[in-house]
């Protein structure tokens, strides 16, 4: 069964055709990219996958489950995590709390448990706390646990956001422009981090990225869209030499 199967996905906003008959199939454990010029509809595809919009037509299946009508938190609990173009951490919460609150889908206790502090509550809180600390330890951020995000450098905030996404144990990780706003030294580190994550965690990574160094050095397979429509797909080598792609990015030279 495919991990992610998108068939003929179409999204309209009023008169704007944001995504047009987009199809894709991920089997699991891939590392691939979605690229295209600004405003091509890349983030819209991610928003559709994570359940933030309901598609006008077409279907999205995650692990064989059709996500139509699901709320984002339900999609997330199917094993899809994502990061955002502009970092969206909870800024008044510590890094540890950022990760713990993301465990809502598997809290395993109810409001009453939290008010009465039952045994179940104590056990689950302990387990969640423990696992969150383990993850931070594993990612080498243990000493950041009690910091709040605004006190951290931008690159570290990105890393925290990725850690938060990993904390829900995703089978599919969506990275929306992970390198945006990073200085070039940090980009090198990011590439290493993503590679490491792909190796250590059992998951597929799908990213939107403008920096071609990132895309070309990480991904086995790339899909290019423009004005909502797919214009090319293939290996980095094929994409690099595809005339359609060059036209979309640089404009038609004949004009």
């Amino acid at each position, binding site marked *: 069964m495919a991990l992610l199967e998108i068939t003929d996905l179409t999204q309209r906003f009023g008169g704007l055709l944001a995504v047009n008959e987009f199809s894709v199939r991920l089997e699991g454990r891939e590392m691939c990219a979605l690229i295209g010029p600004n405003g091509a509809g890349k*983030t819209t595809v991610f*928003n559709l996958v994570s359940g*933030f919009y309901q598609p006008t037509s077409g279907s999205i299946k995650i692990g064989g489950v059709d996500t139509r009508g699901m709320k984002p938190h339900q999609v997330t609990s199917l094993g899809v995590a994502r990061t*955002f*173009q502009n970092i969206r951490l909870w800024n008044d919460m510590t890094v540890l709390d950022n990760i713990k609150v993301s465990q809502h889908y598997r809290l395993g206790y109810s409001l009453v448990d939290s008010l009465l502090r039952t045994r179940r509550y104590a056990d689950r809180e302990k387990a969640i706390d423990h696992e969150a600390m383990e993850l931070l330890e594993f990612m080498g951020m243990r000493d950041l646990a009690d910091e709040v995000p605004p006190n951290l450098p931008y690159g570290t905030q990105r890393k925290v956001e990725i850690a938060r996404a990993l904390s829900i144990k995703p089978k599919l990780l969506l990275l*929306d422009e992970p390198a945006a706003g990073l200085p070039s030294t940090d980009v090198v580190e990011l590439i290493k981090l993503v590679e490491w994550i792909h190796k250590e965690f059992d998951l597929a990574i799908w990213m939107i990225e403008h920096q071609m160094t990132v895309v070309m050095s990480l991904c086995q397979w790339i899909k290019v869209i423009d004005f909502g429509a797919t214009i090319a797909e293939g290996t980095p080598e094929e994409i690099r030499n595809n005339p359609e792609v060059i036209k979309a990015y640089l404009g038609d030279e004949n004009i």
Partner: protein
Amino acid sequence: MLETFIQQGINALQLGSYYSLIALGYCLVYGVLLLINFAHGDIFMVGAYIAFFCATALMGKYGVLDAGMSGWIVLALTVPLTMLLTSGVGVFIERVAYRPLRLKGANRLYVVITALMMGIVLEYGNLAMLGATRKSFPTLVPRAIFEIGGATVTSLKLAAIFTSFAVFGLLQWIVTRTKIGMAMRAVSFDKFAVPLMGIPLDIVIIFTFFLGSSMAGLAGLLYAMNFPVLDPFMGALVGWKAFIAAVVGGIGDIRGAFIGGFLLAFLEVTVAATFSSELRDLISFTILLGILSWKPTGLFGKPRTTKI
């Protein structure tokens, strides 16, 4: 049947014009500062009192001026004086209470709370200064009574209705055609970029409060002429209702505020006429709540899409 229909329609239009004039003030301030100026209803009350004191002073009650000015001249002087003085109060409150908080970067809600308390200060300050006895507004000009389709209409009612439409037209013109109006809209888009573009933020804000408060003053004057009994709490309820009307119309859009005001008035008058006036608030607010649940950003408000 038709007569009552027209009569009620005119009553609704008249009530709606007060709501609309006040709602426009809420809307202007909100549009520029994203601040719910909860003191605005009480500015309306202050406007009515200022109108009262202007009119009685001009009629020679305090011996400052000779009596004997004709009612029309008194009215002609009272209108601009009221608007000017009321806007002075509005701008003063902005300066002393809201602006310092804004400059300190306080959470927006703290400014809202300050506005709420400012409103209470105005109400009770008035009560303490002038006492609990209600003031009755003098008759300045003789009422002419017209008949339209069997319904009677006083000239004052018509004046209120026409004024509100005229003010709306003027405001629409200011906001869309004049430089300062465009600056106001620019501020509501991006407060940080506007000073960079060479637009003096402070002047825009003062102008906004000036416009909003002078309209509230005008509404106060018209209200006092039609319902000539003033008390310190007259503004609170009307103000809250006008605010709700502004939001149902779509706060931040002056067409929305204007239409919202009339919508609320029509609802209230209809409910009072068909059921009973005790049920007025209950039913009309329930309907407004229904509208907001159906269109969460009001009739004219644009749905805000969160950019991810």
